[in-house]
């Protein structure tokens, strides 16, 4: 325990009655509730917290907010380690662990500080000019460059925390809970608007927490407390602290992340770590405040150099003295408040360096009256110190002798930059105000307004309504971006601290022609750090403008892009991660499959039984056994995942005619028909059977994969193209369980369960009828066969799926009924030469698939006119063929390419590829389907199924794809 030597005895919004213990780089220190990590470090006398990106220069705490470029730490450890965390916004909690980053072996002795010594050879973009020889060494160079680059170390483990997202709507959304935001929120709330107020800090008040101000004669925080308490109590007002609005999207949507548990030592498992808010607001009020800008002077990056506003924030908000002997460099009156607060807190202010020639304002005069020398027209030309600043050297800007001031704190203020980020993200324009020296929001593109200092209105009078602040008149600011080196000196003037971009780098970019704002940014990496250039972009721009001899607006500004402050990817992902990434669809018989040893296979969002395991079996032997059961007697398979679309209306048949290639008008009631549809570009799209249940009522089946897309396509055509058709379509995939019953004994089993006569005469192949099945009303029976065997498909309302399944197993027991999975089902269809997903792959026509004969010449349908383009009817197109291994035993691999000579030098002409493979139980050898160029003419030819990825090539013979029962007799008996 070190005590807190820099903690003030009084003041600040911290709780001195409670001590919190935390560790930085393993050193245990103490702070208080209300501290940030930065304020607690300063209370313990620690300014040095990090190393810069490129030169590894020692860096200290520079700001007290989200603009912090230097004080980045690795927070927490293990699977909760978070690199690049801002010490300035991290709330202190008991047991907090943080470490410095981008240094090795430690913060005070960092090997890479050698980069600093070589810095003259490492200007902006040096890497574009070297590391090119020898060419094959770039990956080696890069290995070391990558190690040196980056900042913190991310955890490689899964994040144990949970995130969630919420949507909200309101009349008025106020971003920012400072004086302007609170006033706006109260004004809206008082007239009954639904209001949401977002504040990124843990508390309301904004700069009122950070300064000694009064409103109506009382401490300003009394006003803040009163207003925020009243707002919180109002029914239609929601106030959210620790909530950072980071994005402004179309249609007035603001996104924000609420840090629910980042400030607690031990997280509550029933709360998320962070919550993503998507808020759609009728009107948005941007009261996002302003960020103080530094001035780039030589060696302006030493630990102990701090924004003036940050210095008084540490005094007033946290009761910490950031230094005992301070120098202030400024170009405005406002910064003198820091000098006053430092003096009040007992520090010495050895000098104020003001770039203005005549300083006679209300605040400067107070400082002058307290005996502090104000050097007018002065600027810093050098600083001394390494791990901490020791001395400032200053000199008149017009030239003259150098003066030296010892110090342990150098406050700097170059004025204020309104935070126009969200305004700009919303599509709004920004304009440069030469007098105020900052960009201001102008024309808005969405319903939003910027107020208070976000609009460049920096006085309390501009923020408050019905209350009076203690504004004092201020002299004009003198916009100043950088100060020159003393003649003959070359001290680095850092513009972007984090990425080590100096004024000289900007000059180099100018010299080399990288003069547009975006080129400047990309060439030098200016503003590309974690702080997104909140304290560097404008300075860089101003330096470039000066070099170009133009004014700032002529050089332009870059667009602000979301997020305003970095957002964890966990918060963006919300709950949709891990096994919640996508919903899992289960058939009504899912539990049964699970309990009966099925191995699952993913089919889109569904899981389907791949096969049912028995001891000692693999997928192939299990599928063979399941297939034998079907061929020998009867088997059942769950086909509930197939898409089912209910189509009703007088024009239902017309719709089908326009969608499918074949005709539907003449399909009799009680009949099913196989149909295939095309994509608009003429390629085969989807297939399945559609049955006519009554004159105006059809039930369409689709493949599992295309259930959604086909429905969407029907909806699109009905709504946008053919609104005149009197048809309604509805997805009923989930409403019905579907079971295919296949095998020579399937009729026997089915007949015992059904109230229809299903003899071959009464219910022939492709018959369809409503029925009562196993006592289940509302069932539908179809005599269709995917397996090529005598088969039926029974659909029952989903809730009765398991009952139907059980009834089939029960009733079929004496016939040896078995269950089969989709591996066996797939083997059946390959034996039959039925095409499926691997063949209907979006690159094939119905001609390629052997289904060209289905195309009706009598009518028009989607895709028909483009299907006759020359490229789609070229005789060299692939066709579905069967393959067998010439040796009769070697498995052919799916994905193999068909070639004549696999050993030819590349490029080897490819004639086609293997689409589907199976072991034929009927033929007792492996078989395959393939798409082969000029396929049919090649029957009998021998080719190689080349699989160079495994250095394999199997000699195959081209055969008919109809391996088993080519005439389809079995399913018609």
């Amino acid at each position, binding site marked *: 325990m070190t005590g807190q030597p820099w903690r003030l005895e009084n003041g600040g919004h911290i709780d001195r009655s409670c001590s919190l213990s935390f560790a930085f780089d393993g050193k245990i220190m103490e702070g208080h509730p209300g501290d940030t990590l930065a304020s607690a470090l300063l209370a313990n006398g620690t300014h040095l917290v990090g190393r810069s990106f490129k030169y590894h220069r020692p860096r200290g705490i520079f700001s007290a907010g989200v603009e912090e470029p230097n004080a980045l730490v690795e927070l927490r450890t293990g699977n909760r*380690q*978070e690199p*690049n965390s801002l010490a300035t916004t991290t709330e202190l909690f008991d047991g907090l662990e943080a470490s410095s980053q981008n240094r090795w072996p430690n913060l005070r002795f960092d090997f890479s500080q050698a980069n600093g010594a070589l810095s003259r*050879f490492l200007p902006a973009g040096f890497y*574009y*000019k*070297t590391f090119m020889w020898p*060419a094959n060494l*770039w*990956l080696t160079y890069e290995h070391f460059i*990558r190690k040196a680059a*980056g900042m913190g170390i*991310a*955890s*490689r*483990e*899964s*994040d144990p925390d949970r995130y969630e*997202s919420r949507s909200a709507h309101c009349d008025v959304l106020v971003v920012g809970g400072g004086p302007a935001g609170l006033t706006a929120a109260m004004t809206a709330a008082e007239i009954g608007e639904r209001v949401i107020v977002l504040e990124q800090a843990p508390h309301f008040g904004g700069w009122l927490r950070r300064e000694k101000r009064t409103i109506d004669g009382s401490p300003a925080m009394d006003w803040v407390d009163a207003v925020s308490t009243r707002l919180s109590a109002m029914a239609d007002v929601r106030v959210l602290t620790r909530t950072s609005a980071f994005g402004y*999207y179309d249609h007035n*949507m603001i996104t924000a992340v609420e840090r629910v548990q980042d400030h607690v030592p031990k997280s509550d498992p029933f709360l998320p770590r962070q919550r993503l808010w998507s808020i759609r607001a009728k009107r948005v009020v941007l009261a996002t405040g302003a960020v103080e800008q530094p001035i780039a002077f030589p060696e302006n990056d030493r630990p102990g150099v701090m924004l003036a506003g940050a210095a008084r924030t540490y005094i007033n908000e946290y009761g910490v003295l950031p230094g005992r002997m301070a120098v202030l460099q400024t170009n405005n009156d406002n910064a003198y408040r820091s000098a006053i607060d430092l003096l009040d807190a007992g520090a010495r202010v050895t000098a104020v360096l003001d770039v203005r020639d005549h300083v006679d304002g209300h605040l400067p005069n107070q400082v002058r009256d307290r005996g502090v020398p104000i050097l007018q027209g002065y600027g810093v030309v050098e600083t001394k110190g390494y791990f901490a600043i020791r001395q400032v050297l200053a000199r008149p800007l017009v030239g003259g002798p150098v003066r030296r001031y010892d110090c342990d704190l150098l406050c700097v203020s170059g004025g204020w930059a309104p935070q126009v980020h969200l305004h700009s993200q919303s599509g709004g324009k920004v304009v440069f105000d030469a007098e105020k020296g900052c960009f201001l929001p102008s024309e808005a593109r969405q319903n939003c307004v910027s107020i208070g200092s976000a609009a460049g209105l920096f006085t309390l009078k501009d923020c408050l309504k019905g209350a009076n602040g203690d504004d004092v008149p201020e002299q004009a600011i003198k916009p100043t971006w950088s100060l020159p080196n003393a003649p003959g000196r070359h001290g680095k003037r850092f513009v972007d601290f984090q990425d080590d971009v100096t004024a*000289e780098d900007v000059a180099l970019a100018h*010299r080399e*022609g*990288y003069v547009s704002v975006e080129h400047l940014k990309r060439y030098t990496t200016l503003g590309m*750090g974690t702080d*997104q250039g909140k304290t560097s972009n404008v300075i860089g721009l101003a330096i470039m403008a000066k070099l170009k001899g133009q004014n700032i607006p002529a050089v332009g500004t870059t667009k602000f892009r979301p*997020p305003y402050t*970095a957002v*964890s*990817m*966990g918060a*963006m*992902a*919300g709950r*949709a*991660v*891990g*096994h919640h*990434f*996508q919903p*899992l669809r289960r058939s009504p018989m899912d539990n049964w499959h699970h309990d009966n040893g099925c191995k699952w296979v993913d089919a889109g969002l569904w899981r389907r039984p791949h096969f049912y395991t028995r001891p000692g079996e693999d997928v192939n032997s299990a599928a063979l056994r399941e297939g034998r059961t079907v061929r020998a007697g009867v088997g059942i398979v769950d086909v509930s995942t197939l898409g089912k679309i209910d189509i009703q209306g007088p024009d239902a048949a017309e719709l089908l005619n326009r969608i499918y290639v074949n005709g539907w008008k003449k399909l009799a009631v009680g009949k099913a028909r196989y149909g295939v549809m095309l994509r*608009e*570009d003429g390629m085969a799209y989807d297939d399945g059977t559609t049955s006519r249940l009554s004159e105006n009522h059809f039930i369409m089946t689709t493949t599992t994969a295309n259930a959604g897309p086909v429905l969407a396509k029907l909806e699109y055509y009905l709504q946008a193209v053919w609104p005149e058709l009197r048809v309604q379509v509805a997805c009923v995939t989930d409403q019905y369980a579907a079971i295919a019953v296949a095998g020579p004994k399937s009729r026997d089993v089915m007949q015992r369960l059904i109230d229809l006569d299903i003899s071959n005469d009464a219910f022939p192949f492709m018959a369809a009828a409503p029925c009562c099945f196993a006592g289940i009303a509302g069932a539908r029976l179809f005599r269709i066969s995917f397996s090529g065997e005598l088969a039926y498909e029974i659909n029952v309302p989903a809730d009765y799926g398991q009952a139907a399944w059980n009834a089939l197993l029960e009733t079929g027991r004496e016939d040896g009924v078995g269950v089969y999975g989709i591996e066996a089902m797939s083997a059946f269809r390959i034996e039959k030469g039925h095409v499926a997903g691997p063949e209907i*792959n*979006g690159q094939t026509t119905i001609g390629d698939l052997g289904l060209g004969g289905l195309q009706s010449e009598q009518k028009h349908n989607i895709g028909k006119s483009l299907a006759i*383009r*020359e*490229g*789609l009817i070229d005789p060299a197109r692939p066709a579905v063929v069967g393959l067998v291994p010439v040796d009769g035993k070697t498995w052919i691999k*799916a*994905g*193999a390419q068909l070639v004549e000579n696999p050993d030819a030098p*590349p*490029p*080897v002409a*490819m004639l086609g*590829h293997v689409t589907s493979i199976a072991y034929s139980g009927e033929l007792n050898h492996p078989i395959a389907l393939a798409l082969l160029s000029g396929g049919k003419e090649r029957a009998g030819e021998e080719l190689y199924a*080349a699989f160079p*990825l495994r250095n394999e090539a199997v000699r195959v013979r081209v055969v008919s794809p109809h391996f088993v029962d080519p005439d389809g007799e079995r399913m018609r008996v």
Partner: protein
Amino acid sequence: MLKGGLYPSVRFPQMEAYELTRYSIFSLIKQGLIRHTGWKRAWRNPEPKAAYDVIIIGGGGHGLATAYYLAKLHGIHNVAVLEKGWLGGGNTGRNTTIIRSNYLLDPNAHLYEHSMKLWEGLSQDLNFNVMFSQRGVLNLCHSKAQTDAFARRGNAMRLNGIDAELLSRDEVRKRIPELDFSDQVRFPICGGLLQPRGGTARHDGVAWGFARAADQRGVDIIQNCEVTDFIIEGGRVTGVETTRGKITAGKVAMAVAGHTGVLAQKAGLTLPIESHILQAMVSEPLKPLLDTVVTFGAGHFYISQSDKGGMVFGGDIEGYNSYAQRGNLPTLEHVISAGVSMMPCLSRVRMLRSWGGTVDMTMDGSPIIGKAPIEGLFINGGWNYGGFKATPGSGWVYAHTIANDAPHPLNEAFTLERFARGRLIDERGAGANPALH
């Protein structure tokens, strides 16, 4: 005259007053000693002349590469590249920098592999380090069907002479243990298709490198010069109207990804292109976490780590047609949920920046490079998700096409007419639906 005389260089009459410095460790040290005051402009800033042999519209990677190869390989130096904003400000400076030639279909495989070979010597050729990093591109697969499809593509690549490896689940795990191999995963990783020669490059550097090299060969690179119309006389393009006046040319070539449809309309052409927004994102800089470019197979997500340390990633296009270079939240949420599902440790990594680019989506997912139906006019566009990787190859074949008034065998399949003729190059079999490409 060239100062120093250490480095040989070709000079052209257009650049009498222009001196160039060859980039090397020696010039860097030499300049370091004089505080880098001696570096010259990377490219000149000329006023547009009244006439050129060839005008290239669009100062992105493709346009600049075209100009470079026209000058270098075809002896055509009197070339202007007209850029409406700043060089590389379109998709060149907005993409996720992935380079690969892992294509299934022959025309794609040959074009992108040619490009890959040019990438392999590009830094030396341009004397500008474009940081082409062949760290490998790995496509994850999550099902047997997907594995078969990847095998088909990998085998085709190998037979076309392109490197490819089919990795097992364990091999993927060994390479990138941070991917989700837990039992919490929704779509378990089955394996992956790796192209070891794939990788990334520094996107801005590519534009600048080509610009500098083209400029050194006499090409005029003119920024802030927007083409407002084509001058068409007797069915032939003879020049363009610009915001900086009329410029005539023997040939005019478009290379304006994201705005190809708009620009072509000025010439009276309607292209089979839709413009969509594609967002990309980058995280805060991290110490090396991922050494390979990885794409998710159970959702649209691709990621790599830049040399600066940022995780660079992207996914789907937005669901609507637009020219706005900004996207919306739902796509971001979707993309990032895929990313965190693929690599759970990304959850605590913070997204630093997201942005949008306008991509030209064609109706078969492949680009158009060739002659336009108007004499003297050439089209290069419709690069869908991935024009960056094609930059040198695209410029190379486009320059050939412009110089010879006829396509090179590598791009003869990529005609505009192929849509009418049904000679589609539909790598994914997604059809005329950009959202599925």
